């Protein structure tokens, strides 16, 4: 029992390095002074961060993402929490089927949902509006109160899932309702210049702030529905 734990510890450290590598690399690469993305970065500057305001489409998309995420979080919590209470507290015929129905979007390939929703919204004339995004995100977040303990944890998680989503939003975004992750996806499909690293770094820093706030308030493990057997 003496040697095994050290080997295990080394393996764990290596896997954590693997997990953190892409995030750290983006943060460091964004500080480059060069015209192209490289790692290690060449020189040290904040020029690519200062270049972000020259691309107002990123700021506009950030605003849209934030509004869509907050509205989605509020509606998903309002609709999902009572349903979660009913499904947890009461026994009735068809309860398991209903539970499975509400959980099914989590196992559904996002591309299936994306195609289905875009087709449908085109039929009913809702397509390419922020409302379409909220409706789309509602489907993947309404379930969250069902699997998270606590209203605040569920709501926070819904906001984050909506804010981070690309796969569904890619289908539903219009010229005036492009969320930030979709904007970044379309941008880096064309080029991965240092501007992309700077924008991605801003998103990482926002996520980091969110991690700190959530860990202090509700606990990150709790938000992800971890069974707290310890403490």
């Amino acid at each position, binding site marked *: 029992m003496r040697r095994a734990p050290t080997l295990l510890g080394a393996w764990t450290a290596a896997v954590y390095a693997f997990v953190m590598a892409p995030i750290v690399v*983006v943060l460091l690469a964004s500080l480059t002074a060069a015209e192209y*993305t490289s790692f290690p970065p060449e020189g040290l500057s904040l020029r690519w961060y200062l270049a972000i305001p020259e691309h107002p489409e990123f700021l506009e998309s950030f605003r849209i993402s934030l509004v869509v995420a907050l509205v989605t979080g509020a509606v998903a919590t309002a609709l999902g929490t009572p*349903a979660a209470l009913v499904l947890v507290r009461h026994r009735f015929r068809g309860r398991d089927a209903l539970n499975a129905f509400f959980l099914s979007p989590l196992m559904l390939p*996002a*591309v299936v949902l994306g195609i289905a*929703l875009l*087709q449908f919204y085109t039929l009913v004339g809702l397509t390419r509006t922020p409302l379409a995004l909220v409706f789309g995100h509602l489907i993947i977040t309404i379930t969250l109160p069902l699997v998270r303990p606590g209203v605040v944890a569920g709501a926070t998680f819904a906001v984050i899932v909506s804010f981070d989503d*690309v796969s569904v939003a890619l289908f539903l975004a219009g010229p005036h309702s492009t969320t930030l992750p979709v904007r970044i996806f379309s941008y880096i499909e064309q080029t991965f210049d240092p501007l992309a690293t700077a924008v991605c770094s801003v998103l*990482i820093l926002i996520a980091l702030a969110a991690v700190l706030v959530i860990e202090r308030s509700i606990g*990150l493990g709790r938000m992800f529905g971890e069974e707290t057997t310890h403490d």
Partner: protein
Amino acid sequence: MKSGRLAVALLLVPPLVVFVGLYLLPLANIFVLSFFGFDRNTGRLGGVTLANYGKFLGDPFYLGILWRTLKLGVASTALALVLGYPVAYYLSRARGRRRAYLMLGILAPLLVSVVVRSFGWLVILGPNGLVNATLTSLRLVDEPLRLLYTETAIVLGLTHVFLSFMVLSIAAALDRIDPALLRAAQNLGASPRQAFVRVVLPLSLPGVAAGCLIVFTLATSAFITPALLGGPRVKVMSFLAYQQSLLLSDWPYGSAIAFVLLAITGTAVLLYLRLLERGRFGVVFR
């Protein structure tokens, strides 16, 4: 009692309406659409036909994409299991502050958008990236290797994005093991290795199965990571469905491809449920 039941039922109505109207109906709609003909020149929909599914299943090009999707799904699941099991084991044995930090390291990346995390691999594997910079500076290669837009890049990206789910599933199963069982095994003369192989490993299999199911379904249906790290040349099913429907406007064919993909992930889920019910892990699953 009656009015209480009614109130309970009323609470379920709003989410049910949303789900039926904005989820079930759209899905049914494209399912029907996948049996429609499509004229590429006029863009008009034709009569009911199995041609879309026939076109997919009869063409080695499309079947190749299906095969690649499955292969990448299995490879990322296997890699996530190999990387993740020891981490889950380490995590389940850690206590207090150390455990909290380890948990934070596994959960925190989940708050960063998949786009950003896949983008990180673009920077690492790119021509001026970390790997090529290291290899050239060590003079192991003369010119940058082409690492991006390969299947290997996709597997790395997918494993990275979904590894947390594997670790969390296995750690949850390990946490449920009664420590008394381990003490009992050792009191009865089992070496630590024997105790692990005969007690811990079998009891953790439900977590392994759940983790594999989650990673496999997520990896085979992943879209953003393969699109960024594989590019248009190394296509997977999701990208094909996206391309056919959104970019080429052949909605019936795109829908058919989407349902082939859904059939695969659906089969994986059903197999898992079967295993859960009566498989040889029956006793072990809660």
